[in-house]
């Protein structure tokens, strides 16, 4: 175990008493509670942590936050492996394992670093210009090579063992960011009694206060921080959410956030999710997300050991790590000097300070005090070193070059406001010439920006903005205004800055976008080739398209493009950001909805009974329905289904039909309403009778079918297909509320209230006789075909009996309140036992409906008209109905539209398949010869051969003709004869039996 050679003896917000062992690339290290993986690696002197995307250059830690482009690792292992994880935001835990990525065979020796040698050819967009010859080589050779080299980390692939949740929150004020501005805002609003949610992506609140040595009200800022947090925690309506990233801003004040519930643990505790995806609904929001520090583009600026100056302060002050023995500071402003000061205060050595600005006596004095050489008007021309920084070349004001050795180069070039969320609704940031950065431009309604995120970079401004905006938000949310309180005072700070976008003339590559290996030369090339609009620049060079979304690179790229085109930065473009602010795990946004829980499952009241019977179930829209009921010894589904069908046609069977949609329709105009939504007539339907109905969409195509029964003068019960129940309900509500609100029609779904079972077969009546209470006469005379009346069962339980048939047999549907569904099916089984009653599933149901030529889902596919289906004569010519006019359009009434008929194989041993197309015998299988297609097929145990339904040009006029059922995707080509779609009992004798 190493000794953490770069750890300071004291200081920082780590717990030296709590040692945490972890491993990186198989080597064990030790860190402390409060470390990030990056700080722990740095403490252990690990500099090289990754390889770059294209050139496989060695890379180290650049930042201390979410903007990190280099230090990406594969965290954890096996099914929990998380690729591309930024070491700078990983909270260290005991047992953590991490591995470097995009290298082979090892991080230190990476064979693909030879890409660096051929790099002159690998400029931006090189692939667009080559790999074109010979044409066949692209897919076989070039592209596979490119793909293999692409990508960074490896995804686990295997099922994620952890679970995720969603959650919804509501508040008066959402504060995004728990730094000084956010804390002040939350406190101000919270004191007013506002409901406040304060989110911070870090595991510890405080923002930059954790990384800086600052004073508030004359005391160390840590005291203000502790007091503020304590007060916030005492306010019942304030909710503090650390480890929570607000990643996106959506319409109407809805924010997306991800809470990392258990990422700081080896694995989630029992019953806890790994992460929780939040939708936060906020009346007001304050963006207090701070700012991100900017690098400088110079040769070798990617060497491990080149680090942003603010990040260095984070490691020194927060983590107690001094990331180098010998530091050079390259700064374009005052902010960088704080790094030199803090390093010196921690006992580190600052060898030199290179300040891009002209000489200044005060700075000279300070450099002397720190014991550092000062290069005023200086620049770092290049950084050397292989796997870690060994020295820099510095140009002084006179243009003379000096070589200095160092192992840490801290770079300071000012900060960019973290304004990402302000651009999520297409808002464009505005350039602030004084601050030399983009600041929020158009900001979405309800959002205010505080502190550094607004370009107000001093601590005093952050505290002031927070308090002011927090108060305003509380008032806007309807709470009483509170008297202003004095803003805390801070120690003085200066933020003089003269940014340096790049240093030209150095030797070697100067990186703009570290992660995507975009250099200043690539930006120049884009300018030369006309890819000058900022979006062209990004897309052509891939600048800003990596996992960091250009947080550290977009502005440098823009600035170099501006220089190339002799324009200003704002003339060149803006830097906008798409959501999410930082990458979000897919699992967190899916929550509970995966596997069987992807979508709700609907189960019929008879489901458990079917399960007892050994049913095989099938997904039918949202439902699981019994598909068939295999018996012991039945080895394939067809044997079972044949048995079920035969049993029904020979004796009696039963099948759950509870899944059909059932809509109770009442009101004085109920019959008139049905006239308008169905193509056929309803006013003359007597009470106690059912009728088959067909409804169209307004565009004239068939929407749905079903039977509707008249239960009373002003009371109907409509049934819909299982698949369309919701759609039909919505359609009926539309027709009523939008088209004809003047009608008295009142509808409610009663699908869930009734358990319904079909009892079919010659013995259906005898079976029912024992189940229906004896006072009800269900003889053929008293209860004829299409009768639909209330009855009772089990000695007074209300029920409804319908004599309708999908199978063509004597058949009924019996409905009872759903609580009695299970009892009903058991009673029917008992009553039918003498006849060998057989439960049947959707397969047998399908066979029998095909035998009878009834249309179902495969025919009602949204592309067929009533005429196509042979139901044109149902269309009343005496009334208007939905779809009437459009169904009459020229192309929909043409004679050669494929229409509905049956098909049987000429060789009865041959199998038919739905989806086959019809082609004339002897004609080639080309589109011009396509005459239609098979919609449904089944094997008929009654006929002992396969049969099909389908649509073919000429339809019923061609009965007796033979065509090919052509099915090349299944190697099928069967000669079939066109026949009537009614295969069994065409006279309907069984139905009326």
């Amino acid at each position: 175990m190493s000794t953490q050679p770069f750890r300071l003896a004291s200081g920082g917000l780590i717990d030296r008493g709590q040692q945490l062992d972890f491993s990186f690339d198989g080597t064990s290290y030790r860190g402390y509670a409060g470390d990030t993986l990056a700080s722990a690696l740095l403490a252990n002197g690990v500099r090289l942590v990754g390889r770059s995307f294209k050139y496989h250059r060695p890379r180290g830690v650049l930042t201390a936050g979410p903007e990190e482009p280099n230090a990406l690792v594969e965290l954890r292992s096996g099914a929990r492996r998380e690729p591309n994880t930024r070491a700078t935001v990983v909270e260290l835990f005991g047992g953590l394992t991490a591995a470097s990525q995009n290298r082979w065979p090892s991080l230190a020796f990476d064979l693909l670093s030879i890409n660096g040698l051929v790099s002159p050819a690998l400029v931006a967009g090189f692939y667009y210009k080559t790999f074109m010859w010979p044409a066949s080589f692209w897919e076989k050779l070039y592209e596979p090579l490119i793909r293999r080299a692409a990508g960074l980390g490896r995804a686990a692939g295997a099922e994620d063992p952890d679970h995720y949740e969603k959650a919804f929150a509501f508040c008066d004020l959402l504060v995004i960011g728990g730094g000084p501005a956010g804390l002040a805002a939350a406190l101000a609003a919270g004191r007013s009694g506002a409901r406040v949610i304060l989110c911070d992506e870090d595991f510890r609140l405080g923002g930059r206060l954790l990384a800086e040595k600052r004073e508030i009200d004359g005391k160390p800022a840590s005291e203000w921080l502790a007091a503020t947090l304590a007060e916030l925690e005492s306010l019942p309506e304030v909710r503090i959410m650390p480890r929570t990233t607000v990643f996106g801003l959506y319409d109407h004040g809805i924010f997306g956030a991800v809470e990392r519930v258990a990422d700081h643990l080896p694995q989630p505790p029992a019953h806890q999710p790994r992460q929780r995806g939040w939708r936060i609904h906020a009346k007001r929001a304050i963006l207090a997300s701070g700012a991100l520090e900017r690098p400088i583009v110079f040769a070798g600026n990617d060497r491990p050991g080149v680090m942003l100056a603010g990040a260095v302060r984070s490691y020194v002050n927060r983590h107690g790590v001094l990331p180098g023995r010998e530091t050079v500071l390259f700064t374009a402003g005052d902010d960088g000097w704080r790094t030199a000061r803090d390093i010196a205060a921690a006992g580190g050595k600052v060898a030199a300070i290179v300040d891009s600005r002209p000489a200044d006596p005060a700075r000279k004095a300070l450099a002397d005090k720190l014991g550092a050489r000062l290069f005023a008007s200086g620049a770092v021309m290049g950084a050397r070193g292989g796997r870690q920084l060994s020295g820099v070349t510095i140009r002084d004001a006179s243009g003379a070059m000096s070589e200095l050795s160092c192992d840490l180069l801290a770079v300071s070039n000012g900060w960019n406001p973290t304004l990402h969320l302000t651009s999520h609704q297409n808002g464009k940031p505005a350039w602030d010439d004084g601050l030399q950065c983009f600041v929020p431009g158009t900001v979405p309604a309800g959002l205010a920006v505080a502190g550094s995120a607004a370009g107000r970079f001093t601590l005093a401004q952050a505290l002031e903005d927070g308090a002011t905006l927090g108060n305003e938000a509380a008032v806007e949310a309807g709470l009483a205004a509170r008297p202003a309180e004095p803003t805390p005072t801070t120690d003085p700070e200066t933020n003089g800055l003269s940014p340096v976008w790049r240093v030209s003339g150095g030797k070697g590559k100067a990186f703009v976008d570290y992660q995507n290996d975009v250099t200043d030369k690539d930006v120049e090339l884009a300018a030369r080739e006309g890819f000058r609009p900022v979006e062209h620049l990004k897309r052509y060079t891939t600048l800003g398209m990596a996992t960091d979304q250009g947080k550290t690179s977009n502005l440098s790229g823009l600035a170099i493009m501006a220089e190339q085109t002799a324009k200003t930065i704002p003339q060149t473009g803006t830097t906008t950001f798409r959501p999410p602010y930082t990458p979000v795990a897919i699992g967190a946004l899916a929550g509970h909805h995966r596997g069987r829980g992807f979508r709700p499952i609907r189960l019929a009241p008879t489901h458990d009974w079917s399960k007892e019977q050994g049913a095989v179930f099938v997904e039918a829209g949202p439902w699981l329905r019994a598909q068939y009921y295999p018996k012991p010894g039945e080895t394939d589904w067809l044997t079972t289904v044949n048995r079920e069908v035969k049993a029904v046609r020979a004796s009696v069977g039963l099948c759950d039909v509870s899944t059909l949609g059932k809509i109770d329709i009442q009101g004085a105009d109920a019959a008139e309403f049905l006239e308008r939504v169905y193509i056929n007539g309803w006013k003359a339907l007597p009470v106690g009778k059912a009728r088959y109905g067909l409804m169209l969409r307004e565009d004239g195509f068939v929407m749905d079918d079903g039977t509707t029964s008249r239960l009373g003068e002003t009371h109907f019960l409509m049934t819909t297909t299982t698949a369309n129940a919701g759609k039909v309900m919505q359609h009926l509500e539309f027709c009523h509320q939008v088209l004809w609100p003047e009608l008295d029609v009142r509808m409610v779904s009663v699908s869930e209230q009734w358990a319904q079972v079909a009892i079919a077969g010659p013995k259906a009546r005898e079976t029912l006789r024992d189940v229906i209470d004896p006072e009800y006469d269900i003889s053929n005379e008293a209860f004829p075909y299409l009768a639909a009346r209330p009855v009772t069962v089990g000695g007074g339980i209300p029920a409804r009996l319908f004599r309708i048939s999908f199978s063509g047999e004597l058949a009924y549907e019996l409905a009872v309140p759903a609580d009695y569904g299970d009892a009903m099916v058991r009673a029917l089984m008992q009553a039918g036992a003498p006849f060998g009653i057989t439960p049947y599933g959707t397969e047998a149901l399908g066979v029998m409906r095909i035998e009878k030529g009834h249309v179902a889902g495969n025919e009602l596919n949204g592309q067929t008209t009533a005429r196509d289906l042979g139901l044109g004569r149902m269309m009343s010519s005496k009334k208007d109905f939905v779809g009437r006019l459009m169904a009459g359009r020229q192309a929909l009434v043409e004679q050669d539209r494929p229409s509905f008929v049956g098909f049987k194989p000429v060789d009865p041993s041959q199998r038919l398949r739905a989806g086959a197309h019809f082609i004339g015998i002897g004609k080639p299988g080309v589109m011009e010869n396509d005459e239609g297609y098979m919609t449904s097929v089944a094997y008929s145990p009654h006929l002992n051969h396969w049969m099909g339904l389908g649509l073919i040009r000429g339809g019923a006029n061609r009965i007796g003709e033979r065509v090919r059922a052509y099915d090349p995707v299944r190697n099928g080509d069967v000669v079939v004869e066109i026949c009537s779609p009614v295969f069994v009992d065409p006279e309907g004798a069984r139905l009326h039996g």
Partner: protein
Amino acid sequence: MAETATSWAPRSAWAGVVQAGQIGVAGAAGVTATLLDGFGLATLIAAPGGTLALSQLVESRIGITLPTTPKIVPGASHDAIWSGPDQWLLRASTREGFGSLLEALSAQAAVSDQSDARAAMRLTGPRVRDILAKGVMLDLHPSTFVVGDTALTSIAHIGVHLWRLADGPDGSVFEIMVARSMVGSFWSWFAASAAEFGCQVSIDRSTGRG
């Protein structure tokens, strides 16, 4: 006759889905779930312009006023629960509790029996809102969703009807009704969501009003 051999016993929507006991973490339960069974339920829809007449009829029969906003109005034997414009659910504490009431109300309303169409449960306990927040897309803060409020909404892609009753000894009390066919999926969401706080589950078969 065969009917004597068959019990015709009703089977609750919850049957086979949930068992009494503690789910999730052990120890003091963050929430208590009581599964409700045996209540009567019916949809009432007033005729155009007939809300007042229906309301008067309901009031004369069972002494409660039909709410015209999303509220539940509890009564001695029945509750009236708003379920859409000019539409209510009438809940009787027992399945037999409607007696001739529905028949009488059909003079002024389209009445549809829904007694078997929904599964219902009552939730109370210190973490009840934390659990509901994992699925309910509504602000259930005590000051926003007050006693007597009701909402038709959805949880985890499942339509629900929920309301808040008078506070009990464990704090706020909510009831949730869900379509019978989806109770298994609903429970799957609920059990996963409640597990981190621990949930004591009991079943009340006697009455819908506990």
